[in-house]
């Protein structure tokens, strides 16, 4: 009961502070909104705006079929389309001899996306009732450009499949009804039936079982990455500033006074730590919901997102505990939080903002030197539709960071308040 009373008191004080509310919710949303406006011009606006560097795409065209009417290979059509001038600013497409090499290139970070068109690609799209699997392999730590390109490729292939299947059905039905095919009518029916067509594309990541892809627009993925990054960045500040109440109460005399009450010191500190965790849970939940409601962000499969959020809460809270255990007063806290959290936060975000650059792979590794990088990776994996196995490794890393921080923080605080 006392623990909850302390937690509720801290929560009441936190959520009464306009500064805290602004910092926890307002700033991350504002930054995302700014990117949303900028990205609006990228995605078709007339004004010059933010542009992404091209992402390297390796295509393996194994298609052996030909269309009955023109004798074309649809696999070759797809490759030509992706290599056309229209996509030149978005992706640099090269062909790879086989799937293994293309996937290895993605694994090494030399390519962001690998597209494998199977031998029966044309046959499955032109033959009645046939289907096939197109491999789209992406880096598990998805970056903005990679996600945008993956989404474009996915939509291109899906549309091709949808139109072909729809046309088949429509022509058959018209023929049975004794009607002459009309091109305009066929197009109309094709559009109407596109939504009902089954996807022929499966998305897989290197080293993981194939998972079914979900359609998503490039801007949605882009905003998801940006807002995910902002959420992680500011969650660490929330964790640290909420833990800082231990220092604040020590300076203001309320903590020593609490120690003179018949309440165990461990309960007092635990109550305050629980308040930090609850504050972070509220912050992350609200930002996830607002991201979805305001910007239409699809964060990914519910359970994976929940696990990523839990990892973020855990590591942000323990980082705060770790940091304040080294501090004597609020003045030191301002310097340390401003310096350490900003620096590590920017390091964590570096992979997001260096996408497509020659140093992208290196920068991603650099981002994983700090807990923020792992937290961002967890959300990116969840957004990329990866399996729980992929996330498990990242959550394991977050757990390890958290355990180290928690042990050091608790030991140091125990010594301090003994």
């Amino acid at each position, binding site marked *: *009961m*006392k623990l909850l*009373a302390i937690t509720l*008191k801290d929560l*009441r*004080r936190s959520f*009464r*502070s306009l500064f805290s509310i602004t910092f926890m919710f307002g700033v991350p949303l504002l930054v995302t909104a700014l990117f949303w406006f900028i990205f609006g011009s990228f995605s078709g606006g007339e004004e010059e705006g933010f542009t992404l560097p091209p992402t390297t795409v390796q295509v393996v065209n194994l298609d052996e079929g030909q269309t009955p009417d023109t004798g074309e290979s649809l696999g070759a059509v797809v490759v030509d389309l992706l290599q056309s001038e229209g996509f030149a600013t978005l992706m640099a497409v090269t062909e790879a001899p086989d799937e293994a090499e293309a996937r290895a290139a993605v694994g090494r970070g030399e390519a962001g996306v690998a597209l494998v068109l199977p031998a029966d690609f044309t046959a499955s799209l032109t033959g009645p009732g046939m289907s096939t699997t197109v491999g789209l392999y992406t880096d598990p730590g998805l970056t903005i450009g990679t996600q945008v390109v993956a989404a474009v490729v996915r939509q291109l292939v899906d549309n091709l499949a949808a139109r072909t299947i729809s046309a088949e059905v429509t022509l058959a039905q018209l023929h049975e009804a004794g009607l002459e095919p009309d091109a305009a009518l066929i197009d109309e029916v094709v559009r109407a039936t596109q939504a009902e067509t089954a996807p022929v594309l499966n998305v897989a990541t290197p080293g993981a079982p194939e998972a079914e892809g979900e359609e998503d627009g490039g801007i949605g993925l882009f905003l998801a990455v940006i807002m995910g990054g902002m959420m992680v960045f500011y969650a660490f500040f929330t964790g640290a500033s909420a833990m800082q109440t231990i220092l604040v109460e020590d300076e*203001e*005399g*309320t903590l*020593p*006074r*609490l*120690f*003179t*009450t*018949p*309440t165990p010191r461990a309960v007092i500190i635990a109550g305050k730590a629980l308040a930090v965790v609850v504050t972070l849970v509220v912050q992350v939940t609200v930002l996830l919901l607002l991201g979805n409601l305001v910007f239409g962000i699809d964060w990914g499969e519910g359970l994976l997102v929940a696990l990523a959020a839990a990892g973020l809460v855990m590591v942000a809270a323990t980082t705060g505990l770790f940091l304040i255990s080294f501090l004597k007063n609020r003045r030191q806290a301002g310097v340390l939080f401003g310096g350490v959290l900003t620096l590590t936060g920017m390091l964590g975000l570096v992979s997001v903002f260096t996408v497509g650059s020659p140093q992208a792979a290196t920068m991603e590794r650099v981002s994983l030197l700090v807990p923020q990088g792992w937290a961002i990776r967890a959300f990116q994996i969840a957004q990329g539709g990866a399996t729980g196995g992929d996330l498990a490794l990242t959550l394991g890393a977050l757990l390890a960071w958290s355990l180290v921080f928690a042990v050091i923080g608790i030991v140091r605080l125990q010594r301090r308040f*003994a």
Partner: protein
Amino acid sequence: MKDGIAIRAKELRRRFGTLEAVKGIDFEVARGEIFSLLGPNGAGKSTTISMLSCLLAPTGGNAWVMGHSILDEQTAVKQSIGVVPQELALYEDMSARENLNFWGQMYNLRGAELARRVDEVLALIGLEERSRERVETFSGGMKRRVNLGIALLHKPELLIMDEPTVGIDPQSRRHILDGVKALNAEGRTVLYTTHYMEEAEELSDHIAIMDRGEIIACGSNDELVQIVGEQSRVDLTLNGEAGSLLETWQALPGVVRATIGDGASSENDNGEVELSQTVSLLVDDSNLVLPALFETATAAGRRITAVDIQEPNLESVFLHLTGRALRD
């Protein structure tokens, strides 16, 4: 531990690194009395109180509070005491009622009992009508009352007050002193620390004078004053620094002790800066000594600009025992 004793300290000591802040003190506080620890800043009063309220662990010795050891029965000690810290220790962004509710829970109060005690304390400190306003909107005196009210929530047998009147206006100070007397009249034991002699004299049944971590005298006000007998304290203010005059005065017949006090500077009508210095003397008979003091000052080229003669009191005792004024 014998009956009727609220606090018994035995060889209580506390060291911070190389500094021994409390040097093995012994004292007893009877139940139902007001006991003051009197001494200048740095004497060890707050450290002693911190140990008695289980905030600091002693590095030696032990103490028993309401029969419970501060080493082995900390929860029982904490439940039996109410601590009023020197600085305000409350949540200013919460209302008075929210503060009392929270602190009441920390003292194991729950439900209807908690609600009743919060209402009673609000009435006691005279803040019922403003109970739902944030403390940050209160005056300094009102905040002090909330600070005191928190310590009274669980009806502690012993109230520990650490210099509660520091830095407040005379009206609020009077309110607190009257409050302490009223609480004592209800049968509550009060341990009170102060460096104001007048407060100790007015409130206390017994006084322990502390200096540099030690209790240098302990007893009732009358018992302590008897230490200096009929000696009076004379404070003289000189224009300029005392210099060698101090040694001259120290050697005069009837002067027990002479110490230099505060120095000050001021601007005269011509815009010149003038220095002044206070000298405190403990003398056997002020009527006999004063003429000699004036003569020697004149001979040394100094002018005495103010004279303050005090009958034997705790200040005299402190000066007598330590050679320093209490305010130093």
